[in-house]
């Protein structure tokens, strides 16, 4: 019998490092200390620190099961009912961009998959065009553009001195970019900093983008989680759309509908005509096909059922407010604990100004490591903590850990 040769063809393959964000949960699981706290991944937890499946999601799934729906392939662009409601949720059902059919909406594999589709579109139809990403930004953004072979550079965003927005730097860097660049903006609840531009600042950002003929590219992963209101959180996107600008918008339902593992999101491209939108949609389909042929149906149906059903939609809005509310309470309690325990007089109020699931603590890598190694608090090395993984009960412990790391480690 002819046997195969002895050396592996893959002998030269090196061990890749763990993912900086998802790897945190793996490390957390392996930790046996009972005080351990997972503030790594942006996944909502109840006060009892349990994962949360929304009631409306359970209701939708029961409805779907009762109907005995089949599992036929979706079209490449995804579930039509989903595409319709997702665009309406984002732009508002009465928005002229929808009435004029100027939006190409394609179901994507949550935020990541939708961003990847857009990156593939940019690579193919805007050769050489750059994407500008905020400094800092979600850790996976650069990986997506790297793998899609889209060049990127950073615009100033976080100012460590003020623990706020470096607005002058941001505007200057966007202005300095070659015309026709794609500017990646977080629609609300910036990840990782929690710092969002004000409405006035959004206007100025739109001004300079128009001036330079750039294309705004929104990542909307937290609609509803920033203020608790789905409409308010979409205001930045709607501001740009109202100006008649063309734009790209990636959406995710991982957090706001708790559908993390179902991988449900969408890529929306607002074009200046309906004909262009049709053409762009056809190309997005062409880019999706060699990735996975057609997207998964389950999450799409859940969203379509929840958002498309007035009663369930209202219930969802209430659950959304509840989740955002819990995070606001935890934020307040953390701030209170830090202020009470820290005798140095350091101003921790930036925590209250930050928006959304995360807080950018200002801790550096060594200090973040101390959080983990000494206090068994798991977070990402950039100093980001997920308040969604924090309970009121643990705020004091966390405050102790932060104070120790900040003052005793350099």
């Amino acid at each position: 019998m002819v046997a195969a040769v002895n050396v592996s063809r893959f002998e030269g393959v090196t061990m890749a490092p763990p993912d900086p964000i998802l790897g945190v949960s793996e490390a957390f699981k392996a930790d046996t200390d009972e005080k351990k706290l997972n503030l790594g991944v942006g996944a909502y937890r109840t006060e009892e620190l349990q994962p949360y499946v929304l009631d409306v999601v359970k209701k939708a799934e029961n409805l779907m099961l009762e109907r005995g729906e089949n599992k036929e392939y979706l079209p490449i662009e995804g579930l039509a009912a989903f595409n319709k409601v997702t665009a309406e949720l984002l732009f508002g059902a009465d928005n002229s961009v929808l009435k004029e059919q100027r939006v190409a909406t394609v179901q994507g594999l949550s935020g990541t998959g939708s961003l990847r589709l857009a990156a593939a579109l940019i690579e193919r139809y805007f050769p050489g065009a750059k994407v500008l990403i905020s400094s800092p930004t979600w850790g996976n953004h650069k990986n997506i553009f790297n793998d899609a072979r889209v060049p990127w550079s950073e615009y100033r965003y976080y100012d460590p001195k003020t623990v706020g927005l470096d607005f002058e730097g941001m505007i200057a860097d966007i202005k300095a970019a070659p015309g026709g660049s794609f500017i990646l903006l977080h629609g609300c609840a910036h990840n990782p900093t929690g710092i969002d531009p004000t409405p006035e600042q959004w206007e100025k950002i739109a001004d300079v983008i128009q001036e330079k003929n750039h294309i705004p590219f929104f990542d909307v992963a937290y609609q509803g989680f920033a203020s608790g209101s789905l409409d308010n959180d979409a205001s930045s996107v709607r501001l740009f759309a109202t100006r008649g600008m063309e734009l790209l918008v990636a959406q995710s339902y991982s957090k706001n509908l708790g559908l993390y593992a179902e991988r449900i999101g969408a890529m929306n491209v607002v074009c200046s005509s309906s004909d262009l939108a049709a053409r762009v949609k056809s190309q997005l389909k062409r880019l999706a096909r060699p990735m996975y042929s057609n997207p998964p149906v389950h999450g799409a149906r859940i969203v379509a059922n929840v958002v498309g059903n007035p009663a369930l939609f209202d219930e969802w809005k209430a659950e959304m407010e509840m989740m955002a509310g819990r995070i606001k309470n935890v934020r307040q309690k953390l701030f209170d604990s830090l202020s009470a325990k820290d005798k140095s007089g350091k101003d921790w109020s930036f925590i209250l100004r930050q928006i959304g699931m995360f807080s950018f603590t200002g801790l550096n890598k060594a200090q973040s490591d101390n959080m983990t190694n000494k206090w068994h608090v798991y977070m990402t090395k950039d100093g980001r903590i997920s308040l969604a993984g924090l309970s009121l009960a643990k705020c004091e412990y966390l405050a102790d850990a932060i104070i120790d790391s900040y003052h005793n480690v350099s």
Partner: protein
Amino acid sequence: MESKNSEKAKESDGDSAFEQVARAADIPIYAVMAAFREDPSPMKLNLGFGVYRTEEGKPLLLNAVRQAEQLLVNDLSADKEYLPITGLPEFNKLSAKLIFGADSPAIKENRVSTVQCLSGSGSLRIGADFLAKHYYQHTVYLSQPTYGNHPNFFAAAGLAMKTYHYYDPKTNGLDFQGMLQDLGAAASGAIVLLQASGHNPTGIDPTAQQWEQIRQLMRLKRLLPFFDCAYQGFVMNMDADALPVRMFVADGGECLVAQSYSKTMGLYGERVGALSVVCKTTDVASRVESQLKLLIRPMYSNPPIHGASIVTAILKDREMYSRWVTELKQLTDRIATLRQQLHLALLDRGTPGDWSHITRQVGMFSLTGLNAEQVAFLIKEYHIYMSPDGRINMAGLSSKAVPYLADAIHAAVTLV
């Protein structure tokens, strides 16, 4: 404020950023299916897409799947937290067991990396990307013909493609000598895409003896096998359909395997599958897995949970597994019956040509041998829709429609 915005709207009335984006051409099979949908004829038959249909022409939700879904919905401890990048661990273990066999040496020796992917498509794409990045040979050989979407995965990964002879139009069977010749002439180390069973579009599978010859030749030439397994259990039975894969694993060599549960569990839209890389050692397998994660994370972060949970529930429970296997047998029996009925009907009509390939071919499809004009004739005159290459989906046929299809084929062959 309003006038400011409408001014700005006017300013941006210039050229669109997307002006250079052309409308993409329709994918041929999709265009055919769209035409079917729009066809008002009550006689129309859809034999295009590779999806199973009941005798009544309806999609089928397997009872085992329905049962699994009920269990999942009732499970109060279930959540929707992100899966690991590599997917649901239990799903991966069970999928590997299914294709390689529970007593596979590769599994026992812990040298297989199995990662959940988006059905066969996603598994092929991630495998292709992995080879493009980490394997020294960048040419992949595809059978002539092969599943329509195969070239797209490899093209997207940046791999070059060549073909090997497979289908012999003279016999409507396997061009085995041609296949061996082409593989023998391939550059050392080249990647070869093989379909384990239920070859799409031809329905022609090598025999066990032929597989052994293929294996020997490929190992001699150091060719890297990449198996596409979309029909395990849909052709003969679970073990027989996995035999080619197991033969290659048994010799201690390496290979890639893409699995799909789309057809075999009717989970099409859930996108459930797995990519396995069988390596020489545990250490290599774990390094390979770490690199697969780096490819998956920037594409979609982690795979969808629902379909994988269904598969897991069925594979891990003896009773549900038996129920599934029994249901599968009913589906494959129906297809076998339809093959016989169609063959008989063509014999009865004295349709010119040898139609024995209809019963010789296995799995979901039959490559009829009809040419492009004949296929167009069938669509136009009989409202019977199939792939432009003459492939028909046997699972889309009903006993009632067999006489009509036979009439149509007879007309096409004698008039066109």
